[in-house]
């Protein structure tokens, strides 16, 4: 078992393929069909294309601040393949491929980053929470959901995401502790992309890795090469089995690199070097998976054509988001409470009077 062999305290890194896509750990090679592999790569390609375009839309002034996923896609793609419909997805904000796999749409994602709350609802994604901006606060919610799963004896598992910065918070530590004590079926996936905005991991924690924290809280943990699709898939599969069987929570540290900026308002070269970026670019998940497919004669498509198709689709969804119905005054008030207090009704009427006055002045 991965969790038994790759002990965090020994600072072991679980990998299956190397930077060139060659299988170096055949005994842990997962049981995965060719179709699934192709599907995985296409999902990755689509996610990366959408991500690049999102940044471009922001630069065009058509969307506001956006956090790119660039370089971390394999983690989300792997999770996306393993999440069942009734499994829960508790996102942070850098897991686009997983959101899409769960049933969220790009249109909704674009809407959210344009400034519509409706986007964050991801209506057609069963058992998915909205994006969480206050770092790591969502992990406690994941544990609560896990409690309900046990309480009602359901067959569901929670996929909860957080970044390396988030592991410093009280919420992270409290969540892991509660999860372990209550034996909730939560897979904690820490995307360790090495940076919390400008703060490098060595300033975030003095621990040898993040996976060791699992020991402190009494749950299995493993450090995985997050840019290795196969390793992520295998580790997540084992974690899923473990949680599903009622044994409790699991901690997976997915070691990766944030190839892009923290958000479109950030300039990484202020605090890291191009050289460092180039070193990590060698571990690019897309490159490695592609190489594997090519080496195993599985890749028969024209990537450029595919990307063009994807771009069209992404553009289409973006334009739909842009044409979403205008924000109405009612939308500000409607959802504050399940039953609107009289005082809010009064405030709305007062504002309508102002709007009437404004209109009359024209």
């Amino acid at each position: 078992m991965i969790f038994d062999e790759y002990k965090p305290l020994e600072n072991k890194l679980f990998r299956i393929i190397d930077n060139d896509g060659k299988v170096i750990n055949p005994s842990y090679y997962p049981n995965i069909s060719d179709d699934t592999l192709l599907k995985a790569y296409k999902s990755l390609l689509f996610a990366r294309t959408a991500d690049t375009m999102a940044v471009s839309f922001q630069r065009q002034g058509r969307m506001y601040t956006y956090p790119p996923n660039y370089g971390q896609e394999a983690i989300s793609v792997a999770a996306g393949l393993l999440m069942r419909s009734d499994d829960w997805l508790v996102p942070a904000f850098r897991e686009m491929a997983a959101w899409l796999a769960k049933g969220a749409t790009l249109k909704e994602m674009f809407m959210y980053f344009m400034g519509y709350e409706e986007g964050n609802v991801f209506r057609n994604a069963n058992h998915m929470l909205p994006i969480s901006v206050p770092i790591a606060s969502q992990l406690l919610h994941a544990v609560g959901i896990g409690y309900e799963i046990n309480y009602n004896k359901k067959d569901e598992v929670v996929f909860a995401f957080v970044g390396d910065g988030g592991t410093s918070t009280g919420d992270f530590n409290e969540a892991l502790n509660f999860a372990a004590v209550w034996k909730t079926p939560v897979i904690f996936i820490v995307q360790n992309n090495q940076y919390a905005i400008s703060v490098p991991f060595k300033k975030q924690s003095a621990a040898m890795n993040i996976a060791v924290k699992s020991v402190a809280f009494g749950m299995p943990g493993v450090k995985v090469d997050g840019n290795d699709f196969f390793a992520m898939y295998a580790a997540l599969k084992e974690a899923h089995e473990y949680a599903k069987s009622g044994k409790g929570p699991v901690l997976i540290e997915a070691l990766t690199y944030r190839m892009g900026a923290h958000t479109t308002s950030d300039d990484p070269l202020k605090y890291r070097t191009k050289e460092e970026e180039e070193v990590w670019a060698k571990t690019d998940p897309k490159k490695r998976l592609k190489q594997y497919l090519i080496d195993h004669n599985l890749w028969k498509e024209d990537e450029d054509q595919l990307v063009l198709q994807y771009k069209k689709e992404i553009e289409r969804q973006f334009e739909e988001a842009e044409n979403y119905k205008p924000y109405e005054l009612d939308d500000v008030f409607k959802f504050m409470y399940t039953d609107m207090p009289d005082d809010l009704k009064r405030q709305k009427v007062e504002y309508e009077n102002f709007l009437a006055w404004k209109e009359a002045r024209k």
Partner: protein
Amino acid sequence: MSVMTLVQAINNALDIKLADDRNVVVYGEDVGFEGGVFRVTEGLQQKYGENRVFDSPLAEAAIAGTAVGMAIAGLRPIIEMQFDGFSYPALNQIISHAARIHNRTRGRYKTPIVIRIPYGGGINALEHHSESPEAIYGHIPGLKVVIPSTPHDAKGLLIASIESDDTVIFMEPKRIYRAIKQEVSDEKFSIPIGKAKVISEGTDVTVVAFGAMIRECQKALVMAKEAGISAELIDLRTIYPIDRETIAKSIQKTGRIVIVSEAPSSFGVGAELMAIANEEAFLHLEAPPKRVSGFDTIVPLPKGEHFYLQTPEKIFYEIERTVKF
């Protein structure tokens, strides 16, 4: 003299205090090496070293709690909550400790902490980045809450806050971080905490505001002037302790008061000033005091924010209604 934005004025104030008091330390998330996500602390780590200006791990509660410890031990920490909406985990340390230690130790220990918080909306930001929590902090006994609206005031008030032996919540209106430039002296100076400022005199109505709303009010006052209304504009500058005297004198003169703020109306600064209007100027009131502030809703995301924030037109509308009462 240099022309400074609020960001530069705050940076300058920090620079001056780091230089003249070895006990001053500055920390928070991304505050050290990068100089802060708004570049407010830019260059300071390079100048004063990593043990004085540094990045902390990501944990607001811990940032506040460690500041309490440092302050008790004799340092003067200036910490940053990266955004208003992220300051809440720190509330426990602020309310349960920073605000109380001087009282519970009968003066033996004090907590001279400055907690810098960029706050306020109007920047098309994501969720949790546009809050206006001054009433929450103002309601806690033991804290002082300061909000500047110009570069000069930002520098003077920040220096006063750092030199204060109490915990000061220093809220920086991020919307105008770079929108206002002003000639500011390069020397050290301070502006007393607890003093409001009459920005322009008038006779028909007193308008009180703070932070980014001052600029909106100034525009509204132009509209008011065209309509024949002479308004007196007061910049509150300190939320707690409020400058009662200046407010009272003004209402006694004009007989009317309009209070403008971003935050939700209920239980806010507007409500407090309305109470003061009654207590200090009951017999002088010719119209009910009016608070012009946000709905009791969460700040809408950018596509809906225009409904929520006070605009010059909306402010003028309320001023006119008050004068015509």
